[in-house]
C-alpha cells in the first residue's frame, strides 16, 4: 500500500495517556479476588457507564504477589475502584491490560496519532489545521522535511496534510508535525492532487489499520489505487479513473455494518463488474 498507510495499531497509544495501576492482593475470603475475577469474567461482555468494580486492600497482607491492572480507554480509576465511563465491550490483552471497545464518530485528538488534516488558515509562522476535533490544531511551517526560515514549504489553504500529533491533551491546543523524531518526512506532508476525501467511523478506520486487516486485503484484490487513512476517520482514495475512485469510496462507506461474509460477497460482485 506504500508508506502512506501506517498499518500499526495506534489504539495502544491511548494507554500512554490513560495508564493507571491498581494493585490487588489476592486474598482468600475477601471480595476483591471475586472482584478481580468478576472483572476478568466480564471480558467480552457489554458494559455500561456507571458499572463499578472495586478493588480493596485487605487489612492483613498475604504473601502472594500483587496483581497489576492497567486501565485503557473507557475505564477510569476512582481511588480503589475502576469505573466504566463508556458503553462497549470489555477487552483484555495479556498480561493485564483492559479497555472498553466503543464505537464513536467524533474524533478526540490523541498524542502520536496520524491524521489527515485540512489547512484552513495561514497566520504568521503556523498553519491552522482542521482535524475534526473540538479545536483546530496548529502546524508550524518548520515542521516539514527540509524546511528552513528561508525555504518555506509549499502549503496553501485547502491542502490536505498527513501529519501526527505531538501535543494532544485536553488542556492545550493540539499541535501537529509532518516530520518524525529524526527529521524525515516518512510519508507525511502535503498530498492529494486529485482523489476523493470522505469520512467513515473511527471503528472502521481502526479495523483498516490493524496489521492483518481483512478489509484491506479484500480491497487490494480489486484494482490498484492509492489510499491514505487518518485516525480521525478521514480516508483519501485515488485511482486511475474517477469511476474506480468512487467505487472504492462507496465500498468503504458501506462495509461498516457488514459481516465478513457479506463484505466478501459484495467485493466479489463488484470485481466481476456486475455493479
Amino acid at each position, binding site marked *: 500500500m506504500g508508506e502512506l498507510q*501506517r498499518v*500499526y*495499531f*495506534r*489504539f*495502544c*497509544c491511548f494507554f500512554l495517556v490513560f495508564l493507571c495501576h491498581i494493585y490487588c492482593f489476592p486474598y482468600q475470603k475477601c471480595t476483591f479476588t471475586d472482584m478481580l475475577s468478576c472483572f476478568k469474567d466480564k471480558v*467480552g461482555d*457489554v458494559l*455500561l*457507564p*456507571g458499572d*463499578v468494580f472495586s478493588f480493596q486492600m485487605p487489612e492483613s497482607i498475604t504473601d502472594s504477589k500483587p496483581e497489576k491492572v492497567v486501565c485503557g480507554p*473507557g475505564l*477510569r480509576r476512582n481511588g480503589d475502584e475502576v*469505573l466504566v*465511563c*463508556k*458503553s*462497549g*465491550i470489555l*477487552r*483484555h*490483552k495479556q498480561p493485564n491490560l483492559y479497555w472498553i*471497545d*466503543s*464505537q*464513536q*464518530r*467524533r474524533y*478526540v485528538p490523541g498524542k*502520536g496519532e496520524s491524521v489527515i488534516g485540512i489547512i484552513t488558515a495561514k497566520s504568521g509562522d503556523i498553519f491552522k489545521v482542521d482535524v475534526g*476535533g*473540538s*479545536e*483546530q490544531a496548529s502546524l508550524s511551517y518548520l515542521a516539514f522535511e527540509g524546511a528552513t526560515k528561508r525555504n518555506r514549504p509549499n502549503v496553501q489553504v485547502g491542502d490536505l496534510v498527513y501529519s501526527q500529533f505531538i501535543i494532544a491533551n*485536553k*488542556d492545550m491546543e493540539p499541535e501537529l508535525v509532518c516530520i*518524525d*523524531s529524526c527529521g524525515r518526512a516518512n510519508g507525511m506532508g502535503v498530498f492529494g492532487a486529485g482523489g476523493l476525501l470522505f469520512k467513515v467511523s473511527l*471503528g472502521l478506520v*481502526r*479495523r483498516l489499520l*490493524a*496489521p*492483518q*486487516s*481483512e*478489509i484491506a486485503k479484500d480491497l487490494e484484490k480489486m484494482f490498484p489505487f492509492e489510499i491514505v487513512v487518518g485516525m480521525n476517520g478521514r480516508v483519501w482514495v485515488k485511482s486511475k479513473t474517477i469511476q474506480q475512485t468512487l467505487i472504492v469510496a462507496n465500498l468503504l462507506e458501506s462495509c461498516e*455494518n457488514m*459481516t*465478513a461474509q457479506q463484505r466478501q460477497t459484495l467485493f466479489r460482485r463488484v470485481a466481476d463488474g456486475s455493479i
Partner: protein
Amino acid sequence: MDVCGSSSPTLREFGCEQNLLSRPDGSSSFVQGDTSVLAGVYGPAEVKVSKEIYDRATLEVVVQPKVGLPSVRERAREQCVRETCEASLLSTLHPRSSLTLVLQVVHDDGSLLSCFLNSACMALMDAGLPMSCLFAGVTCAIDTDGQVITDPNAAQEKESRALMTFAIDSTERRVMMSSTRGSFTVHELQQCIAVSQKASDKIFQFYRDSVRRSQGLRWFPRQIGDESRDGTDVRDDPEHH
C-alpha cells in the same frame, strides 16, 4: 399507564433505537407507549469564545416541539434535562468544547419529560461521551383518589391532582432531578420517589439489553480484525517513537 399499588410499578411498553441518524455523533429514539422522542448529540465540537468554560464542556440542550416554535415550557424542560446531563457527564474531560443535545418531540402522549431524559441518556451513550453514571426518567401522577400511577398517558395526566417526574441515577438509585406540579403531601412525595426508584430498575435493565443488542450488530466477534487487535503491541513496533 397502569395503576399500581405498593408492589411492582408497571410502565407502558417502551422501545429504543440507537445510531439511526447519519449526521449527529450520537442519536437515539425512545418510545414510551405512544410518546416518542428523537434525540441527537453533537460533540465535543468547537465552541464560541463567549460560551466556553475553561475547565469543562459547555452543554446545550434544545427541545423542539412537534408544532410551533419553542416556548417557555420547552425552556423549562431544557433546563431540567441539562442539569441532569451535566450531573452525569464527565465534562471535565473535554474543556473548552461544546456538547449539543437536540430533542425532537415526535408524539406526546404523557410522561414527556421522562421520555426526554431516557432518550437523552441513550443518545449520550451512543455518542461515546464519558459518563459517570446513567440516568432514567420516571413520571408519577397522583389521581383524585390518591392512587399513584406510574408513566401516565396524556388523559391520566390531565385528570391528576399532582404530577412528578424524577431522574434516578444508575449507581445508587438516588434522585438527581425532580420536577413537580400540583399539590401533594410529604408522604405522597416519598411514596412516589420509592415507586420511581423501583421502576428505574426496569429501565436500566432495558438500557443494558438494548445496548447489548446494538453492540452485537456493530461488532462481529469473529472478525479477523479483532484477533489482530489483541495480538499487537505498539511498543514492539520499531517505527514507534
